[in-house]
């Protein structure tokens, strides 16, 4: 790691430099000031209290000490005297601001005298400049007496020399070199050095009274000091400023560079790296910035690459989708054309069959060949039946291909009914039935597709007539208002054979009549009801049925009085081609469709996309998907609205809705009726599990493995009536082949089979991946040994006795197992 000198250090350095400079300056000037001040103080005191003038002092000194006394102007009065130098020159010394007085007792006395004469307070503090003197000073404690003047001369005990004694004008005491006399705080000064061999320090004389000439002189001195200092102060200040400026600039420049770089970065430019070489925080910051910028550049480049790649992939898949869509469109058009052609091509030879059989029938009658007539009638009848089948298939495929258009017009309901009744009358009469029409005069008009409505009613009436013999068929029509909307309710009631609930359940599935024998007995294509239902749904209506076996059935067609054209995106619908267990994905994000579609289709689940709530609802109404997945945030009608609409529609309310959204509001979702709530990003496995669980509500996919055809038939019928999807295998080997095509939700297993028996199959199943999860129910006629029973108990959910099979118990057990595995998966 690069060792950086921190900014703090730099700043500290700068600040230190500045502070040191400032301190030096102020310290020195303070020192200067204190010296100057001291002088000024001393002089000021002198000038205040010393009323005499220099002349007086001079006179006194001249009187007392004839000799070369000299008073130096601008300084305190300093006397210096010593025993050995009576005529010693009074030296004037300015030593670090302290002005010692050199002198002797006489001098002291003179000073005292001076003080007395001038009425000035005199204070003499003394301390010897050497140990002895010091000693004296300490041993001979200064006795300060009250009174104007007390002179206390003393002598050195060793030398006998007169040494300085203190004088004070007021009482006080001396502690640690400081004397407190009265209110004044005196600093005791001492001579720093002696002059002359026997020089003794007398003390410092302070003039307590200001002495104007002194003060003036002192002022000059301090001014001189100040003036002398000024350039230096300025120089230092300037230097400091310059230093600070330079250092600041040096520090700020890289910061500015970084700032610029960051700004450019923010604007999306990729600046060159910031050139900062300093080893402080700024340098570190610049380094970090450079690394970050490099990382960003790298990341951005990677992202750009990825985006380019994804864009490319997307373009490719879009192109592929476009091609697929075009192909689908082409295929769809081809399909429509094929249907139209087929109808023509099939009908043409059929016309001949029907026509010639009629001709032959007539001619046979003419020529009395009566024994041929029944057979010719059969050919004729079969031809008619085939023709009807073809027509119905054509209609149905048109509906399912989304090609069935609605021709909406407004017409009187009664007039339309009369038309239908006159058409159906011969058919009703043929079976000796009575047709009763119950319709109020003021039933009004309807805006719908007249042809499809007529055909629907015709289908219902002919159906009723077909299954009723010497009974009554009632057509009851009412106009009613539900939720502010006008509806036309048309009920066709018969007193015919009726149906069991199981038969009712299968009723609307294509090609399924109540049972196989029905077709033989009653004829018909089995498509009439399916078509009627699809037509009704196309017009936003419903067909419902109530039936009691042996007592008759009531089919009720309800249409809105104002049918609105349904927006049907035919290419979507064409692709769905009616697979069971369809999943409708409502999401405005095509990428989501892609993901869900790929995920689910891998599992063999057909997916229909809807890109908006409105389209989703329309497709849900039309396709009746097994499960709907629903996004919340969509333009137009959002997911919550769609959910409300779905749950408010009796036809759609039962379709489980799985919320698939980024919005995590499960409470709202569940309270509005969602069956499951998944949040994006999608957990694909979970999605698959959930979809499978809901897709098979009511029934799952069962594999029946049994070599007995009759048993398989029975199982199939039983399971289909419970809405199970059934696949079959005749032995274990076929069973394994069936597993390879996809695992069922449940296996019904016989034990005694050729090629591979149930035990072997079971072992193979449990050895497969995920094979352990498939519940197995054994249905066998075989008498199990205790050992076999024990073995099975660990591998199968339940064993049923084939010979005494309790269908209800079996179905209940299967449902339980299905819901258990669903719950386990979900």
């Amino acid at each position, binding site marked *: 790691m690069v060792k950086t000198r921190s900014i703090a250090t730099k700043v500290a350095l700068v600040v230190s430099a500045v502070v040191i400079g400032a301190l030096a300056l102020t310290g020195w000037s303070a020192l200067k000031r204190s010296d100057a001040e001291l002088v000024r103080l001393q002089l000021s005191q002198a000038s205040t209290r010393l009323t005499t003038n220099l002349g007086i002092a001079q006179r006194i000194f001249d009187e007392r000490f004839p000799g070369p006394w000299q008073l130096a102007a601008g300084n305190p009065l300093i006397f210096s005297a010593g025993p050995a130098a009576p005529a010693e020159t009074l030296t004037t010394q300015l030593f670090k601001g302290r002005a010692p007085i050199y002198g002797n007792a006489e001098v002291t006395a003179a000073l005292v005298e001076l003080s007395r004469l001038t009425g000035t307070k005199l204070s003499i503090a003394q301390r010897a400049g050497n140990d002895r003197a010091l000693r004296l000073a300490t041993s001979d404690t200064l006795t300060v007496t009250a009174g104007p003047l007390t002179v206390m001369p003393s002598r050195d005990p060793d030398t006998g020399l007169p040494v300085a004694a203190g004088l004070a004008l007021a009482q006080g005491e001396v502690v640690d070199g400081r004397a407190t006399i009265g209110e004044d705080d005196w600093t005791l000064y001492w001579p720093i050095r002696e002059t002359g061999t026997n020089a003794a320090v007398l003390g410092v004389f302070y003039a307590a009274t200001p002495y104007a000439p002194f003060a003036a002189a002192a002022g000059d001195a301090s001014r001189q000091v100040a003036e002398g200092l000024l350039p230096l102060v300025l120089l230092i200040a300037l230097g400091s400023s310059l230093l600070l400026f330079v250092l600041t600039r040096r520090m700020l420049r890289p910061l500015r560079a970084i700032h610029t770089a960051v700004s450019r970065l923010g604007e999306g430019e990729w600046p060159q790296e910031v050139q900062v070489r300093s080893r402080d925080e700024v340098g570190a910051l610049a380094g970090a910035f450079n690394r970050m910028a490099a990382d960003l550049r790298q990341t951005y480049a990677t992202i750009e690459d990825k985006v380019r790649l994804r864009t490319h992939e997307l373009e490719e898949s879009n192109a592929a989708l476009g091609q697929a869509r075009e192909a689908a469109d082409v295929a769809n058009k081809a399909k429509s054309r094929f249907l139209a052609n087929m109808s023509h091509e099939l009908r043409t030879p059929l*016309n001949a069959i029907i026509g010639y059989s009629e001709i032959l029938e007539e001619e046979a009658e003419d020529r009395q060949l009566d024994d041929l007539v029944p057979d010719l009638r059969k050919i004729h009848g079969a031809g008619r039946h085939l023709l009807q089948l073809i027509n119905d298939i054509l209609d149905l495929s048109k509906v399912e291909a989304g090609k069935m258009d609605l021709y909406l017009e407004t017409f009187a309901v009664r007039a339309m009914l009369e038309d239908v009744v006159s058409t159906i009358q011969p058919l009703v009469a043929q079976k000796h039935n009575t047709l009763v029409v119950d319709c109020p005069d003021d039933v009004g008009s309807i805006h719908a597709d007249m042809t499809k409505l007529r055909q629907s009613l015709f289908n219902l009436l002919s159906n009723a007539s077909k299954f009723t013999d010497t009974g009554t068929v009632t057509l009851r029509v009412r106009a009613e208002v539900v939720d502010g909307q006008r509806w036309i309710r048309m009920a066709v009631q018969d007193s015919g054979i009726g149906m069991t609930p199981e038969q009712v359940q299968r009723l609307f599935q294509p090609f399924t009549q109540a049972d196989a024998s029905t077709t033989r007995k009653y004829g018909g294509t089995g498509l009439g009801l399916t078509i009627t239902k699809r037509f009704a749904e196309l017009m936003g209506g419903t067909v419902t049925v109530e039936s009691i076996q042996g007592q008759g059935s009531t089919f009720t067609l309800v249409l809105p009085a104002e049918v609105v054209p349904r927006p049907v995106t035919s290419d979507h619908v064409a692709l769905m081609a009616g697979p069971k267990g369809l999943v409708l994905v409502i999401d405005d994000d095509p990428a989501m469709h892609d993901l869900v579609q790929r995920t689910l289709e891998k599992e063999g689940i057909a997916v229909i996309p809807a890109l908006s709530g409105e389209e989703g609802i329309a497709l849900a109404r039309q396709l009746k998907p097994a499960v709907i997945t629903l996004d919340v945030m969509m333009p137009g009608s959002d997911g919550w609205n769609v959910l409300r609409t779905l749950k408010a529609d009796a036809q759609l309310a039962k379709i489980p809705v799985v919320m698939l959204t980024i919005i995590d509001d499960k409470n709202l979702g569940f309270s509005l009726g969602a069956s499951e709530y998944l949040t994006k990003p999608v957990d694909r496995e979970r999605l698959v599990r959930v979809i499978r669980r809901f897709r098979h509500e009511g029934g799952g996919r069962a594999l029946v493995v049994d070599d007995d055809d009759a048993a398989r038939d029975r199982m199939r019928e039983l399971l289909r009536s419970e809405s199970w999807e059934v696949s079959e295998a005749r032995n274990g080997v076929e069973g394994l082949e069936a597993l390879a095509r996809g695992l069922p939700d449940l296996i019904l297993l016989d034990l005694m089979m050729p090629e591979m028996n149930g035990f072997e199959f079971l072992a193979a199943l449990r050895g497969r991946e995920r094979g352990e999860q498939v519940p197995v129910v054994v249905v066998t006629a075989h008498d199990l040994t205790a050992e076999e029973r024990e073995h099975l108990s660990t591998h199968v959910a339940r064993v049923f006795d084939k010979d005494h099979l309790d269908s209800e118990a079996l179905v209940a057990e299967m449902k339980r197992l299905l819901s258990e595995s669903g719950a386990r998966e979900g």
Partner: protein
Amino acid sequence: MAKILLVEDNELNRDMLSRRLTRRGYTVIVAEDGERGLELVRSERPDLVLMDMSLPGIDGWEATRRLRADPAIAEVRVIALTAHAMAGDRERAIEAGCDDYDTKPVEMDRLLLKITTLLGATP
């Protein structure tokens, strides 16, 4: 004896329908396409034309329009026959000038009813 012209390109249908109509006492002449049909209308003066609409060359609609446009033959009755029982076919046929319309395969009784209605009498 009413004369009926059957314009039909399909041989089986033509044969079948002509035989059945003949059986019921009509004089039947046939044409395979629209152009030949119009010629026969002019030369044979049938009382009624059974016109298949999907014909090669001049189709049934066009043939009917031309027939109505020719004052000499404009009064001839025309019943359109079409295999496409699509909504709008009836309207299109009437628009082209047909007097009535029926779908194939022909239901003899229904067709005969329409013929007698138009001709005002049985053959």
